């Protein structure tokens, strides 16, 4: 049985250890190296520090693992002892991470995931991660049989593709422009009304904003700058996380590498991939580019990354890459298409907002300009949603091939093309509202296996055709 890398002791001591240690050490300098007086004042702190250190060392000591050709065996804990043995045949993803801090010490973080892995359970993520030496890492790779084919198929993402991907998929991008306009314009209207009440807050903000001269705009500028900084941070994190992105296909699955400061490497078992999801928004649809993601237990949910397969590329290149890297996942054209577009909800909101603005501005005439402004912002959003739903009608549908099912649907503002192997389908549900019963359509929800059941809802499908397809 082996132990983890000793560097993990520093991880176990956590932040409180350093918060206590540094002032204690600093005390020696303040007491001018008079050890006796220093010790008289800090003996309690030293005892606590020693307890934290000893408990970290004991925690390291009582975590052991063993590797052989077919399985990995792990034993953890002293008071509550946990033993488990994972055979290599059930592994879906193996994740290795080399953070910047660990690299000088040649330590590698290692996590094994199976179909029972649940990414939302943070305790499980922390529990099942080990820190091993480079030698153990090489032995794990050797024992698990991660070999390359004679002519390995590679896909390497260019920096341009990664920049576009990070720009499109950073969490505050789409809201940033919208919110910025809303806040700056809205504050100019509202500020006259409630300026007295929030003046003290604005004062505090303006003191830090050297370029905000106008009081009424300063608060809005501060918020916009904060949001901008948040977006830039999200963008930088995403870009650095997916930098040097490379996929290599080999006999048993895929090897995915990425990361600049922290280097991540995943080995994904192809037979455990639940589905591939090609994602687009309206902008990407007009530019004919897609972003491909895969669903596999443990892939990229470990490390809080996205489950990216191909960051951003054209549709043709994505199809070609999928054919080379994952030949079992073949897309097929729609056999059954959507009968009607789901425009009622966005249309209702468009009309509702228009009527609401008219009504409210007649009642609250003092707040008219604010109401009209908010109404316009909401109207823009719902008109965009309406355009998305109308576009979705043209593409929504279900295609069937020998081994896979292709689902094309729209969820919120995003278009999805999901390719699911038939073996990974848990069950299919057909749902009809009274209106759909009249119009002869239905919603088809396909549940796939994975970390819990995941449902893909394809709306407005012709009911008779889908029933005929499923029976045959």
């Amino acid at each position, binding site marked *: 049985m082996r132990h983890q890398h000793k560097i993990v002791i520093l991880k176990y001591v956590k932040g409180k250890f350093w918060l206590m240690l540094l002032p204690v050490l600093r005390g020696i300098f303040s007491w001018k190296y008079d050890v006796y007086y220093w010790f008289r004042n800090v003996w309690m702190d030293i005892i606590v520090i020693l307890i934290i250190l000893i408990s970290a060392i004991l925690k390291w000591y009582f975590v052991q693992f063993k590797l052989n050709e077919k399985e990995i065996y792990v034993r953890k804990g002293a*008071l*509550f002892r946990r033993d*488990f043995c994972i*055979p290599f045949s*059930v592994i879906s993803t193996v994740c290795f991470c080399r953070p910047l801090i660990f690299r000088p010490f040649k330590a590698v973080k290692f996590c094994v995931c*199976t*179909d029972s892995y649940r990414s939302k359970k943070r305790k499980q993520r922390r529990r099942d991660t080990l820190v091993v030496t480079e030698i153990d890492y090489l032995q794990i790779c050797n024992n698990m049989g991660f070999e390359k084919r004679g002519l390995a198929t590679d896909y390497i993402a260019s920096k341009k593709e990664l920049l576009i991907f990070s720009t499109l998929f950073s969490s505050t991008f789409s809201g940033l422009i919208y919110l910025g306009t809303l806040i700056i314009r809205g504050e100019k209207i509202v500020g006259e009304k409630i300026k007295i009440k929030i003046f003290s807050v604005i004062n505090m903000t303006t003191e830090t904003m050297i370029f905000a001269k106008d009081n009424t705009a300063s608060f809005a500028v501060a918020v916009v700058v904060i949001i901008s900084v948040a977006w830039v941070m999200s963008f930088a994190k995403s870009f650095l996380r997916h930098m040097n992105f490379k996929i290599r296909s080999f006999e048993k699955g895929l090897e995915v590498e990425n990361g600049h400061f922290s280097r991540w490497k995943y080995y994904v078992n192809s037979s455990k991939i639940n589905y591939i999801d090609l994602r687009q928004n309206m902008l990407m649809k007009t530019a004919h580019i897609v972003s491909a993601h895969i669903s596999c237990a443990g892939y990229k949910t470990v490390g809080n990354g996205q489950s990216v397969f191909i960051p951003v590329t054209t549709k043709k290149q994505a199809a070609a890459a999928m054919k080379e890297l994952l030949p079992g996942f073949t897309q097929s054209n729609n056999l059954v298409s959507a009968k009607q577009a789901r425009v009622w909800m966005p249309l209702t909101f468009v009309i509702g907002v228009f009527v609401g603005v008219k009504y409210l501005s007649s009642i609250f005439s003092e707040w008219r300009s604010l109401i009209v402004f908010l109404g316009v912002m909401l109207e823009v959003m719902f008109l965009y949603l309406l355009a998305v739903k109308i576009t979705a009608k043209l593409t929504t549908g279900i295609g069937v091939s020998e081994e896979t099912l292709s689902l094309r649907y729209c969820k919120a503002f995003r278009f999805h093309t999901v390719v699911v192997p038939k073996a990974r389908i848990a069950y299919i549900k057909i749902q009809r509202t009274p209106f759909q019963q009249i119009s002869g359509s239905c919603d088809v929800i396909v549940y796939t*296996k*994975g970390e819990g059941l995941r449902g893909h809802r394809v709306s407005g499908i012709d009911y008779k055709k889908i029933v005929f397809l499923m029976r045959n």
Partner: protein
Amino acid sequence: MDKYYLDKNALAILNVIIICISVCIIVVIKYLLYYKLAEYNAVKLAIEIVAAGLVTIYVVWLLIILPMWYRSVCYTLSKDELRINSGVVLRKLICVKLADVQYIETLKVPIFYKASLNFLLINISGKRVVLKYLSNAHLEELYNKLIQFGKDRKSKA
């Protein structure tokens, strides 16, 4: 088909733990009543009523419900599946196909070796099923049988 029941040693330990917790709660309530809230008669009355209710619930649970639940739990292992029966008022039945088992964990408390605080955690796709309070012998037996089933399935495949 093999049947396994919860071990009685663990029930004794659970009773001891519950009694200790109850005593601590009662002491804290008494301290609050007679030292901190001595002036407020209405609050004292409310706390005494709550404390009496808690004690009643504890006694009923300790003497009646817990032993009944303990006796109701049964694990049945057959060729292809594992069945878990439990529940006093609402009976629950869980059937686990052994072919869907990914891997197995054991959780023990070495200090209380004789107390049978042993758990077998069976990881299946997207979920974990826990077999609680097994005796040491039953834990080993179940563990070995499940591992053997996994090896036989692999060799057939």
